[in-house]
């Protein structure tokens, strides 16, 4: 194995660590929100510093590979894709942190009914599933799996679209829960962004493996 291949392999395994770290942040943010577990929320905030530090390290690794090895073709595409995916993952980390900030501000455990009408848990589970799938697509270089993310993201869009009405109705019936309801709506907005970040990651995986640029393409074109 050439020196560059070793560097690329190391970069990939570190990227997978970043994927797992961010997924764990998102899962913990879900638990902390559903159970109003403020300790867990604080843990996510502390770990966010690790996510940020890891992002900087991965960026530096990518820069070093470009500067020292002058990669071309699939190697270059891989490093360029990693730089972008790294930044997408860091943003997902920010989203988990943002939701945990809400948890620290909420006084009462979220109403079951509110979670139900906003389809919050479905939103969370779908986001985590999508993140898991792009992780696997990245690991196994599976562009078919990466493409399946575009379809699943539609579920998040749909829940997000209906959330306004659901929250408005809930507030009408539970005027004492306005604060909590608004936090929940913001959390849904944030989770919708997780789907967008995962779509960007899927596009980068396809760029790296197939050398196809899917940015700004229609849903149909992305499936081709």
């Amino acid at each position, binding site marked *: 194995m050439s020196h560059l291949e070793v560097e690329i392999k190391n970069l990939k395994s570190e990227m997978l660590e970043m994927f797992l770290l961010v997924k764990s942040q998102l899962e913990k943010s879900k638990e902390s929100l559903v159970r109003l577990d403020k300790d867990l929320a604080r843990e996510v905030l502390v770990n966010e510093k690790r996510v940020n530090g890891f992002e900087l390290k991965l960026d530096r690794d990518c820069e070093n590979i470009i500067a020292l090895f002058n990669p071309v073709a699939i190697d270059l595409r891989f490093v360029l894709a990693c730089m972008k995916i790294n930044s997408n993952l860091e943003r997902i980390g920010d989203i988990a942190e943002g939701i945990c900030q809400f948890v620290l501000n909420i006084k009462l455990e979220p109403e079951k009914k509110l979670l139900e009408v906003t389809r919050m848990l479905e939103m969370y589970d779908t986001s985590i599933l999508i993140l898991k799938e792009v992780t696997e697509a990245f690991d196994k270089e599976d562009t078919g799996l990466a493409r399946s993310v575009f379809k699943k993201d539609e579920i998040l869009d749909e829940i997000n679209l209906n959330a306004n009405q659901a929250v408005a109705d809930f507030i009408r019936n539970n005027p004492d829960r306005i604060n909590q309801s608004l936090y929940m709506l913001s959390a849904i907005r944030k989770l919708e962004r997780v789907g967008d970040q995962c779509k960007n990651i899927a596009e980068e995986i396809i760029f790296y493996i197939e*050398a196809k640029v899917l940015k700004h393409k229609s849903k149909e074109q992305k499936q081709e």
Partner: protein
Amino acid sequence: MSQKLEAKNVNVFYDQTHVIKNVNLSVKANSVAAFIGPSGCGKSTFLRLYNRMNDLIEGFRKEGEVLLDGKDIYAKDLRVEDLRKKVGMVFQKPNPFPKSIYENVIYGLRIRGVNNKKLLDETVERSLRQAALWEEVKDNLKKSALALSGGQQQRLCIARAIATEPSVLLMDEPASALDPISSSKIEELIYELKTQYTIIIVTHNMQQAGRVSDTTAFFYLGELVEYDTTKKIFMNPSDVRTQDYITGRFG
């Protein structure tokens, strides 16, 4: 842009050895084409077809056509001397003659019998300016060319090659024996010269091929595996052999 050089179904043999296998390749005027590939892949042999430098090699045989401006350069009525006025060549190692800088540049004109002092002076200045050497040697034109540094000698050889006003420049690893500064000067020069010449460069330096050329041809075992724009070759080559070679995973 028109096709300056065209090779059609070209095969080359050295005795029984088939060294170039059915290659078709066109180079547009005022562009730079890079030939890359492992040692012994046939890229230098192919380069030398363009100025018929293989002709004297024992056992050399060529099939197919090589055209310059649409005319077969292997046609019986074509004089090799006339071809070489149009196709200049620069080699891996700088090879100035043991003469003054001035005499080196005008060597081609002298053997053609040009003695007009004004014309010779003008040619020396023009060629050395084009080769980005004028400012460094203008006060020492009578100095021996062998006293120049390796990088300067190579630029002098380029000046000598362009003094006869060819339309094609062939370069066989022109910067491989030079330090990085001299090498980058040659690369800058290639970039400048392509406005007036069609250039083909053989190089083992991938990054150099990427930096200087518009198109890149990858040769392997005498075959032209892939020929495309340099951007395509270095970002997304079509053939897995090209990818393996440029990413260093070959063999």
